[in-house]
């Protein structure tokens, strides 16, 4: 039976891609952030996941405002990255796992989550950078991808409660899959940051700590706010915590051990974090 072996959570700020490109990982500005990753890489080397179910948000590469799904599940054989317009390199393509994607899709809709399905889907820095961080210099990605996109761009956004429920439904889907895959669940984005408006530069370390302290043992604590309240607390782009909440749900309601946790301010305009959880 397929096994969910861990949950990997990280910020996905485009600036990280720039730092990797320049080789800035050990500079005083970037080192405190990159120091969060050696333990995650070491764990991955042992744990050897072969599928990653990744919850993230598109930043205007795949989805435009003409059609904006609240939840979209990829079912493609491959997922390409592409030029996002601001100078990041184009990252390696991912191989998909259509059979497992369709199983997840079937199970979600049976579970009354009326998701959008995508047989073609570009993935942006929100998917590529987390894997550049943990598989640096890999010739090709050692994992297959099932991307799940959550709308964090155009309100109404799904509530934290709904995102946790979606994640739990993905967990049920993965539990009922007959394959022998070793599955890594990922949530990317955040933590607190705001890029737009007079409040640009806003962060909220107290709210970030509340999230980091509760995500593993008490994820329901993060569902007491509406999406709008999360934006007020975490900043307009801090709502990307929705991806983390959904990914936590997909790990299932089992006791979790924290393998690694790192929090650093600032990288670019963002309070950045990485976290690795494993079923106890």
């Amino acid at each position: 039976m397929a096994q969910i072996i861990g949950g990997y959570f990280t910020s996905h700020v485009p600036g990280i891609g720039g730092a990797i490109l320049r080789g800035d990982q050990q500079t005083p500005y970037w080192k405190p952030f990159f120091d969060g990753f050696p333990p995650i890489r070491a764990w991955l080397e042992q744990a050897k996941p072969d599928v990653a179910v990744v919850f993230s948000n598109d930043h205007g590469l795949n989805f435009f405002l003409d059609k904006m799904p609240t939840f979209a599940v990829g079912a493609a054989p491959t997922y390409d990255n592409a030029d996002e317009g601001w100078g990041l390199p184009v990252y390696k393509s991912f191989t998909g796992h259509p059979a497992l994607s369709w199983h997840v899709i079937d199970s979600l809709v049976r579970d009354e989550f009326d998701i959008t399905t995508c047989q073609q889907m570009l993935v942006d820095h929100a998917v590529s950078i987390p894997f550049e961080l943990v598989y640096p210099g890999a010739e090709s990605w050692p994992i297959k991808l099932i991307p799940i996109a959550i709308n964090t761009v155009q309100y109404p956004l799904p509530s934290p409660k709904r995102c946790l429920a979606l994640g739990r439904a993905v967990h049920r889907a993965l539990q009922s899959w007959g394959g022998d895959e070793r599955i890594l669940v990922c949530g990317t984005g955040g933590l607190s940051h705001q890029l737009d408006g007079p409040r640009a530069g806003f962060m909220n370390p107290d709210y970030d700590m509340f999230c980091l302290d509760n995500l593993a043992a008490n994820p329901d604590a993060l569902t007491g706010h509406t999406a709008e309240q999360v934006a007020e607390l975490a900043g307009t782009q801090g709502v990307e915590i929705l991806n983390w909440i959904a990914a936590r749900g997909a790990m299932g309601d089992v006791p979790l051990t924290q393998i690694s946790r790192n929090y650093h301010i600032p990288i670019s305009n963002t309070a950045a974090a990485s976290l690795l959880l494993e079923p106890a």
Partner: protein
Amino acid sequence: MTPDSATTDNAIRRTIPLFDGRLATRGYALNAMCFSFNERANREAFLADEDVYCARFGLTPEQRKAVADRDVLAMLDAGGNVYYLAKLAGIFGLGVQDLGALQTGMSVDQFKAMLQTWAEKIPHQEHV
């Protein structure tokens, strides 16, 4: 959603403000133009003749003026969404800290220093 939380949420949408149907409707043409900048050829076409390129997307006079003035707050007011506007900013070589400075009236150095001060507010430090 209870009626009470709908009222509170709508108030938050107006005050921050958040990119909801009201702004998404107002900003559609501007955001559509910015979305096109994912392609290099389109970025080059914009640089070659900004007026023609903006006209092709039917920008409103308010949007056209905001773009001409490189006025980020006015672009947001005109319904621009920052994820799309960032692609326009990229054409001018501006990153998110430049945008932050432009929106807050600070210099880029002041804005960067302000970002740094949030580190002092971390309530406890977790070991890696």
